[in-house]
């Protein structure tokens, strides 16, 4: 596709509307008891679309954090954990990659910081993952801790208080 055609796609897209639809769809599909092939294709593509939108329009991050649904998976925290601890390995891998990319690219400030959101969420749920397939959960947690350490080294005295990240008030 040429760049003029790509720009036409971008100009004719309501990214907020597309984000709302896609995150709702992802929560609905992920909330199913069993996933068939098509569900996994939908999850893979929905994650790619959501990551693309969040990197392109960083203000949409507030919609991700504020996501709520009336049934099934009810919010962003449940959605994240459902993906990372899904019985299907492919889904867990897709979530680990997507969340890792978000953590690396969305840390403008402490209010819009995917790294802090994810670190806090995984730390608070560490005790709740027994009897669940959790390899991707641990791998992501390790990546986030490394990322936080590198960020703290870079920021020096200006680094954010870690206790506030792991146990937000």
């Amino acid at each position, binding site marked *: 596709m040429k760049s003029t055609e790509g720009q036409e796609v971008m100009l004719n897209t309501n990214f907020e509307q597309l984000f709302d639809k896609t995150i709702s769809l992802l929560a609905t599909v992920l909330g199913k008891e069993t996933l068939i092939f*098509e569900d996994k294709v939908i999850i893979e593509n929905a994650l790619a679309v959501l990551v693309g939108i969040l990197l392109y329009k960083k203000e949409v991050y507030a919609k991700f954090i504020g996501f709520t649904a009336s049934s099934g998976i009810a919010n962003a925290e449940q959605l994240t954990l459902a993906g990372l601890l899904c019985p299907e390995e492919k889904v867990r891998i897709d979530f680990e990659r997507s969340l890792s990319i978000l953590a690396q690219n969305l840390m403008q400030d402490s209010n819009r910081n995917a790294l802090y959101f994810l670190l806090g969420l995984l730390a608070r749920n560490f005790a709740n993952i027994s009897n669940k397939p959790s390899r991707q959960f641990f791998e992501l947690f390790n990546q986030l801790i490394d990322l936080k350490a590198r960020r703290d080294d870079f920021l020096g005295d200006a680094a954010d208080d870690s206790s506030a990240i792991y146990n937000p008030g």
Partner: protein
Amino acid sequence: MVTESDLEAQRLKTNWTKQFLEQHGWNYIITSYLDKQVSTSTTVTFIEQASLKDLAFLLTLLRVFLQAGFQAQEGGKIGEAIQLVRKSSSIADESDLH
């Protein structure tokens, strides 16, 4: 080595995308996608599975076009990130969409 027929196939594919967009194909994809609902029932009927296949294909198309759009706008950085999300775990065959 690139043959004459490879070039012709490439030209036809490029023209297909251009014509599709000129005839509001992107708007059609978005509108169709926004209208779709997904069933949450535990037993999947033939009709529901067909509808799910339709939605999976539509979302694959949407992601491919959007990725190309990001590639055009953002010097490829976001397009590469999307590619990374799908790296090696991918099950969606999209070779015919390019």
